[in-house]
C-alpha cells in the first residue's frame, strides 16, 4: 500500500487521458448527433399542424393507407414540395404518432396529452383509439423521412432547429436536394450550420461535372475526416473496365487519395484508442469486482468463494433502492444510484460481518476449508436470492444521466455508464486507500495483517479487526455490485461470472497488495481488448488465463510482491 500516493497519482493521470482527449467538435459524431436530434425534437416538435391547404393537404391526405409504397410516394412528393408546414406530420409519422381513422382522416397524436388533432385542419378531434389504424412505417421509409425533416428544419427561424436539420443532411444528403441546399446556404448566417451545409453539399458534389467543384468537395470532406465518407472518396479512385480511372482529373484523384489516407490514419488512431479505452473500461469492471476480494483474500488470506454473491447482494441492494425511489420519491429517481452506494456498502458489509462471526472466524487456521465453507455460504445466498426475488433477472433502469455516451474522438465513444464505472472504480480505490492509510481501522488492519500476535500484544483486538476487515471487504464488494448492476444483468447468478476472474486479478496482482490488484485488473482489461480483435472474445480470455497460470508458475508472488511475509503461503 505504501507508495500508492505517487503510484496512484500516475495511475489517475493515466486514466485521465481519455477524459482530456478533446471531444471532437466537427459535429459529425453519430451518437452525439442522435442525442441532440432527439433533444431538439423534444423541444421543437410541434404536435399539431397550423392547418394545411392546397397541394400539401392533398398529399398528406394520402397517408391514410397501409400500403408502404404509397407512403413512400407521399414522402417523395413532400420532399419535392418542401413545405415547412408539413413538418409536424412528418415528425409524427417518423415517431409512430400518426394515425388514420375509418373516414380517412389523418390524425396526429400529442404524446404529452394523448389528444388527437386532424393533420389537415389542425383541430382537435375526439376519436376512440380502437378505430384508428397506423400507416405502415419501415426503416426504409424513415430513411427517406429523416433528411426531409432535416431539410424542412432548415427553414426554421430557430438556429438550434436549423442546426439539427443541417446535421441530419450532412449525414444523409439526398441528390435531389442539392439545388435547394445551395439556396439555403446562400441565406445561412450561422457559421456552424453553414459548415454542416457545406459538408452536405460537398458530399453531393463529388460527382459534379466541374472538376473544380469536385476538388473543392474532396477538400471539404478531407477536412472532416469522417470514416463514413471514406467509401465515397474511394469511388473516385475506382477504375472502369478498361482500367482507366473513373475520375478524369488527376488533381481530384490526388486530393481524394490524401483524404483517404488522412481518414485511415485517423481510423487506426481511433481503433487503438478505442481498444485502450474499452480495455480500461473492462479493467475497471474487473477491478471493482475484485477489490473486495483483494481485501478479504489478499489481506486476510480467507478464500472467500462467496465473494461473487457479495457482488450480487450489492447489485440487488441497488435494485431495491431503485424500487424504493420509484415508489416513494419518484421526483428524485435519477439519483437513486447515489443512495444505493452507501446502502449497498452497509448491507453487504453486514452480510460479511455475519459470515465472519458465524462461520469464518472458526476457520482462520484452516484456509482450504474456508474455501468449502464459503462456497456453501455462496450456494445458500444464491438460493435465498432466488427464493426472494425469483430466478429471473430483475429489471434495472439506468438513470437518465447515466445513459448515452461520451465521445472521446470520432469513432471512439464510451457509454456514460462505463465512464461512470471507471470513475467509480477510482473513487473506490481512493476510498480504500484512504481507509487503509489514514484511519485508525486501516492502521490496525495493517498491523494485524503483518503480525497478528504482536498487534494483539499491543492491545489491538485482532478478532475485532478481522470482523471489520471482512465487513469492509464485503462492503467494497457491495460497491462493486452497484457498478455491475449498471452494466450487466442482475440475477442470482451474477456473482458466479466474476468469481474466477476476481481470484485471477488478485493472484496476478500479488496477494496482499491492493495496488497490485489495481494494476493487474486494468492490465488484464487492456490486454484482452487488444487481443479480442485478433483472437475473439473467448479465445482472448482463455489465452489470458493460460498466461496467468504460466505467470504464476514463474512468479508465484504476483506482479507486485511485497518483501517479507506476503506472498508466502505456508
Amino acid at each position, binding site marked *: 500500500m505504501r507508495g500508492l500516493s505517487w503510484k496512484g497519482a500516475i495511475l489517475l493521470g493515466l486514466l485521465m487521458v481519455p477524459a482530456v482527449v478533446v471531444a471532437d467538435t466537427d459535429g459529425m459524431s453519430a451518437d452525439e448527433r442522435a442525442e441532440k436530434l432527439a433533444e431538439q425534437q423534444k423541444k421543437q416538435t410541434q404536435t399539431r399542424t397550423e392547418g394545411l391547404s392546397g397541394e400539401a393537404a392533398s398529399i398528406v391526405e394520402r397517408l391514410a393507407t397501409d400500403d408502404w409504397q404509397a407512403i413512400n410516394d407521399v414522402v417523395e412528393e413532400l420532399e419535392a414540395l418542401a413545405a415547412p408546414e408539413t413538418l409536424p406530420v412528418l415528425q409524427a409519422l417518423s415517431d409512430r404518432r400518426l394515425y388514420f381513422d375509418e373516414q380517412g382522416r389523418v390524425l396526429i397524436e400529442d404524446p404529452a396529452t394523448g389528444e388527437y388533432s386532424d393533420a389537415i385542419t389542425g383541430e382537435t378531434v375526439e376519436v376512440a383509439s380502437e378505430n384508428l389504424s397506423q400507416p405502415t412505417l419501415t426503416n426504409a421509409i424513415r430513411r427517406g423521412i429523416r433528411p426531409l425533416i432535416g431539410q424542412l428544419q432548415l427553414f426554421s427561424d430557430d438556429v438550434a432547429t436549423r442546426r439539427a436539420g443541417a446535421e441530419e443532411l450532412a449525414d444523409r444528403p439526398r441528390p435531389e436536394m442539392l439545388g435547394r441546399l445551395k439556396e439555403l446556404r446562400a441565406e445561412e448566417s450561422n457559421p456552424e450550420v453553414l459548415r454542416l451545409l457545406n459538408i452536405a453539399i460537398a458530399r453531393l458534389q463529388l460527382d459534379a461535372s466541374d472538376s473544380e467543384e469536385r476538388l473543392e468537395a474532396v477538400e471539404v470532406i478531407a477536412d472532416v475526416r469522417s470514416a463514413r465518407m471514406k467509401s465515397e472518396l474511394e469511388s473516385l479512385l475506382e477504375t472502369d473496365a478498361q482500367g482507366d480511372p473513373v475520375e478524369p482529373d488527376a488533381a481530384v484523384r490526388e486530393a481524394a487519395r490524401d483524404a483517404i489516407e488522412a481518414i485511415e490514419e485517423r481510423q487506426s488512431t481511433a481503433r487503438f484508442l478505442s481498444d485502450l479505452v474499452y480495455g480500461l473500461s473492462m479493467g475497471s469492471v474487473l477491478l471493482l469486482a475484485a477489490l473486495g476480494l483483494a481485501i478479504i483474500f489478499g489481506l486476510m488470506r480467507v478464500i472467500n468463494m462467496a465473494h461473487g454473491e457479495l457482488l450480487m447482494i450489492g447489485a440487488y441492494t441497488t435494485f431495491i433502492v431503485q424500487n424504493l425511489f420509484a415508489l416513494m420519491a419518484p421526483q428524485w429517481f435519477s439519483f437513486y444510484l447515489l443512495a444505493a452506494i452507501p446502502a449497498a456498502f452497509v448491507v453487504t458489509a453486514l452480510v460479511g460481518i455475519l459470515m465472519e462471526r458465524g462461520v469464518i472466524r472458526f476457520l482462520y487456521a484452516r484456509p482450504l476449508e474456508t474455501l468449502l465453507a464459503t462456497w456453501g455460504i455462496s450456494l445458500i445466498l444464491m438460493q435465498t436470492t432466488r427464493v426472494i426475488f425469483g430466478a429471473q433477472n430483475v429489471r434495472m433502469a439506468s438513470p437518465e444521466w447515466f445513459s448515452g455516451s461520451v465521445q472521446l474522438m470520432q469513432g471512439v465513444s464510451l457509454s456514460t455508464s462505463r465512464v461512470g464505472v471507471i470513475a467509480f472504480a477510482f473513487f473506490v480505490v481512493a476510498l480504500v486507500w484512504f481507509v487503509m492509510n489514514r484511519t485508525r481501522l486501516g492502521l490496525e488492519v495493517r498491523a494485524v495483517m503483518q503480525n497478528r500476535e504482536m*498487534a*494483539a500484544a499491543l*492491545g489491538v483486538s485482532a478478532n475485532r479487526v478481522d470482523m471489520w476487515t471482512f465487513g469492509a471487504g464485503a462492503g467494497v464488494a457491495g460497491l462493486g455490485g452497484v457498478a455491475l448492476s449498471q452494466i450487466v444483468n442482475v440475477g442470482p447468478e451474477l456473482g458466479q461470472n466474476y468469481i474466477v476472474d476476481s481470484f485471477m486479478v488478485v493472484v496476478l496482482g500479488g496477494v496482499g497488495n491492493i495496488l497490485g490488484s489495481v494494476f493487474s485488473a486494468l492490465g488484464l482489461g487492456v490486454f484482452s481488448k487488444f487481443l479480442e480483435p485478433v483472437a475473439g472474445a473467448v479465445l482472448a480470455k482463455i489465452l489470458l488465463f493460460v498466461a496467468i497460470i504460466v505467470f504464476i508458475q514463474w512468479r508465484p508472488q504476483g506482479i507486485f510482491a511485497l518483501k517479507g511475509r506476503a506472498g508466502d503461503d505456508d
Partner: protein
Amino acid sequence: MPASVKSIWGNDMLEITGLNQYYGDSHTLKSVDLRVETGSRTCLMGRNGMGKTTLLRCIMGLLPVASGSIRLQGRELNGLRAQQRARLGVGYVPQGRDIFPQLTVEENLRVPLAGKRSKGIPERVYRLFPVLRDMGRRRGGDLSGGQQQQLAIARALVLEPEILLLDEPTEGIQPNIVREISDVIRRINEEEGMTVLLVEQKLAFARSTADCFSIMNNGQSVASGPMDELGDDIVSQHLTV
C-alpha cells in the same frame, strides 16, 4: 476479582504460581513460580531453551497454559486474550523485536493506541527516544537493529503499562545502544515506578539494569532474590554453560 483487590502478598505486581505448559509432547514449563514485586526491575535468567521466552509469552497470553495461575496486581490473567492483558497494563517487547516492517515508525507507535483514550503518542516516549521523532516517516523495516529495539520499547511504552516485559533487548545490538537501553529501563523504573521484567542472558547487562533476579532451569524456577544475592555459585550452577 476486581483489579483493585491486592493479593495476599500485598505488593506483588506479577505473581505466577504452578504454571505448566506443554509444547506438543514436551513439557516446557514445569510448575513455574515467579513473583515480581511492584516497582522492581526483575531479571529472568537461565540458559538457552530453559523456557524464559515461553514464560513471557504465557504471561502475555500468546501461548495457552495447561494449568497454574498468572496474577497481575492480584487479578487473574488466565482466560484473558492478549489484547485484554495489554489493556490491563502488560507491555511486551518481544525477542526479535517484531516491528511492523511495512508501517512507518509513527504508525508503529500508534498501533498501541487502540485501547487508549488518548489518541496521541505520549510526548515522554519521544523524550526517551528522541531519534524516533526524526524517523517518523521511515518504514519500520528500514531501521537498524538498535533503532528497531528502541522503537519496540517505545511502542510498548505508548501503552503506559504497569509492567514491561522485555525479551532479550540487547540481542544483536551495538554496545552504545545497549547502554542507552539500560539507562532507559532504569529511568522509566525509577522516574515512573514502572515494574520491569527482563529476560537477559548477558550477566553484566542484567546486573547493571535489574535489581532482582529469578533463574529458570529446565522449565522450572530454581532461584530468585535481590540482584546482590546473585553470587558466583548460582551463576556457575545455573547460568554458565
